[in-house]
């Protein structure tokens, strides 16, 4: 991480600049007249939005950033005061609270109001309520894009058609109306082409974890790596540049036999290789990571890094079929995959990345992830033959991060892996 590495990596500097630029552009949007479209990470059609010259805002990213900057507690309290229940997704409450507190972005700039809420209903029910709630706040147009769930494990042909029809007849007209610009398929293709390039590099970065030691932490470290592509930079030249730089750095680490940088230093002695399922906790992110790193545990694959698109099984955005590829992308986001599919994925990861075990971080907020994780735990244990650990926390609600409990569970779990190893060698 920044503090521990002597010179900052280029990718890190690039990312910082990209984000700062983006928030500045957003702040200036009321003056420059750039249209602003709010949408979600899973199923974000950044290329399409960008092709209309619009700037995307992803409320989840704002929420998680607020969490990392220790602001979410207050925002959540604000939303609860406004009548929100303690029980529901804290991303929503954090976002609502942030709006109520003046809509200041995590970097301190002011966020513009949306010209359009593009509700990409992908793998999470809560999205629907979230934008209904935002519509109440902003009183702005909303367009609903229904992505059918992979109930039977595939995107059926009719469903693909249904999505494309919605794109053509609902989403694009809504974007045209909100931005005052015509749909330009060639521009969209250009963005899609750039997307695919960055996606190649991202996959290479994530798969570098197959090395021993892995040069990256594919969960804690990788949430930074997926940031740009999951949010506003997929399909942009900056995005391409970022992933090129990142890939080079990671390849250099592999060549040097280096492990990942962690909050407790470079982890070259990889005592445990783990796969992680579920989103991280943001409010105590570094503390959480340190608990793993200080025990020598490194994450070699995670599902969370697939919520904004699953690329490691071959999917790439395809400029030849612009709307079809957007439909395929949305349908393939991790949370839109059914539970048997998620189990398969975890088992594959454990095998391919030669993991010693897997950890499920179950977050209170997110039913889309959490409902069913206990069953996944047992199925994966059974099929992959490695033990799993179950940790409970939350995304951005500081009230639900109990360091002592998590540490206790993690320690017990890692000691259990040790004991098994000793037992196996004896």
């Amino acid at each position, binding site marked *: 991480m920044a503090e521990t590495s002597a010179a900052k990596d280029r990718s890190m500097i690039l990312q910082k600049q990209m984000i700062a630029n983006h928030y500045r552009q957003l702040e200036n949007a009321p003056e420059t007249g750039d249209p602003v479209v709010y949408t979600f990470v899973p199923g974000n059609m950044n290329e399409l939005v960008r092709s209309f010259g619009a700037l995307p805002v992803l409320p989840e990213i704002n929420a998680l950033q607020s969490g990392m900057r220790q602001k979410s507690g207050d925002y959540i309290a604000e939303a609860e005061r406004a009548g929100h229940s303690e029980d529901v997704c804290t991303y929503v409450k954090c976002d609502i609270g942030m709006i109520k507190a003046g809509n200041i972005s995590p970097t301190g700039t002011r966020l513009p109001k949306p010209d359009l809420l593009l509700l990409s209903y992908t793998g999470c029910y809560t999205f629907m309520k979230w934008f209904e709630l935002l519509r109440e706040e902003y009183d702005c147009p909303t367009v609903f894009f229904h992505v059918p769930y992979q109930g039977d494990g595939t995107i059926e042909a009719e469903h693909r058609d249904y999505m494309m029809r919605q794109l053509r007849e609902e989403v694009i007209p809504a974007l045209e109306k909100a931005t005052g610009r015509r749909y330009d398929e060639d521009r969209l293709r250009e963005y899609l082409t750039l997307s695919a390039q960055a996606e190649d590099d991202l996959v290479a970065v994530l798969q570098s974890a197959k090395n021993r030691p892995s040069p990256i932490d594919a969960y804690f470290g990788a949430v930074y790596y997926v940031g740009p592509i999951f949010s506003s930079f997929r399909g942009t030249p900056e995005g391409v540049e970022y992933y090129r730089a990142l890939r080079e750095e990671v390849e250099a680490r592999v060549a040097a036999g280096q492990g990942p940088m962690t909050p407790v230093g470079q982890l070259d002695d990889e005592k445990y290789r783990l796969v992680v399922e579920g989103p991280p906790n943001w409010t105590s992110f570094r503390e959480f990571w340190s608990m793993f790193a200080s025990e020598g545990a490194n994450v070699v694959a995670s599902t969370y890094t697939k919520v904004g698109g699953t690329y490691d099984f071959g999917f790439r955005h395809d400029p030849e079929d612009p709307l079809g590829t957007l439909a395929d992308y949305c349908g393939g986001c991790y949370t839109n995959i059914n539970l048997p599919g998620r189990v398969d994925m975890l088992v594959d990861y454990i095998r391919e990345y030669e993991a010693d075990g897997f950890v499920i971080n179950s977050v209170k907020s997110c039913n889309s992830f959490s409902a069913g994780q*206990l069953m996944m735990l*047992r199925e994966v*244990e059974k099929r992959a033959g490695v*033990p*799993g650990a*179950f940790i409970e926390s939350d995304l951005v609600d500081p009230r639900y991060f*109990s360091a002592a*409990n998590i540490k*206790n*569970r993690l*320690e*017990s779990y890692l*000691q*259990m892996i040790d*004991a*098994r190893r*000793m*037992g196996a060698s*004896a």
Partner: protein
Amino acid sequence: MRCVIGIDLGSTTTKAVILDEDGAIIGRGITNSRSNYELASAVARSEAFADARFRLVAREVRGELDQALLGRLERAFRLEQTLGQLGRLHELIEEEIERRQYGELGPTVREAVGSIVKAIELEERAHFGSENPPLRSSFFRDAVGSAYNRYAEEISDPKGVTFDLLLGLYDKCIIRVENEPMDLGFQELIDNALDRIENPTLMVDAVRAAASTELDEACMVGTGYGRATLPFPKEAIRSEILCHGLGAHAMFPGTRTVLDIGGQDTKAIQVDDSGIVTSFQMNDRCAAGCGRYLGYIADEMNMGLHELGPMAEKSTRCVKINSTCTVFAGAELRERLSLGERREDILAGLHRAIILRAMSLLARSGGIDDEFTFTGGVANNEAAVHALRDLVDENYGQKTLNISPDSIYTGALGGALFAHRLAS
């Protein structure tokens, strides 16, 4: 003699187990962890060493007659300890009365406390004097506390020395009694105890030999809730999950599933054929349905913990209880009583509710495999065991259910086994 120690700093009780060079248990000690972990582990240790010395005496003593005598000696020893603590309690209360300046009421208060202490002393003498003393909590606080309550209620006078006043004095001082290490050593106590039993000469040699044996502590491993506060090196601290798994395996080598219900947490653990944990689940954050819950219930009913089980076993119709929030326990109980339910039936329901919660954790950890071992303080409670047996039968079919009278020491035993490994 070289030995190793395992200490389990539980949330309510602290346990110590001592093993000899061969890994055989030679001593156990237990105390309330309530006020001070460091002290608690010191007390548990010294209890365990006292116990170990008794075992050594026992090794020396052979034959039926001597065994009976040995029992008498042990009870005399316990009586010595208890009277010592009782005397200290009395002393502290007297000081407290002084400090509080009751004015005119002072002498009456003093007299009331004096008579309570007297009565307790008689009770204790009778208890330890009997060949077969009834089962009860081994903690001074519990044993004396309930007697104190009883006598205080009896002699209190709403217009003079009130119950609240008497209870307040007790509450204030009992903590200090628990917090003060007993300065009497094994030697002194045992000498006094020897004086109490007839024909001590028979024992003296064995006792002398045991008392003079060097018990040389080679290694100590700590575990349990409070383990982080122990001044141990990291290698000497083990997660309580692993210790419970290993301890249960040592007691019952066929064990595959372990359920531990302690004071504030419940753990469900699966182990393989060498005692290695393969998966586990524990509840945290909410102490509903754990040992403390029964503690609250016992307080509410003004009964000893050990009396709850037997009473619940008399139930004919188990009442359905929904909430096992420890703090609400009393309220739930009162509500049921006011609805006209019988105590026995409510208690049976409460026990079932606790076990139901545990069943969830068990299911979560992977179910119940043969053999199944139940450990922790609550395993001492027959109604809980009964409910568990029923629910296991109903839901998982017939399974061997292991319960050891020493089940509360499982974690400490596991710790001691780890210590034994480290030492060798």
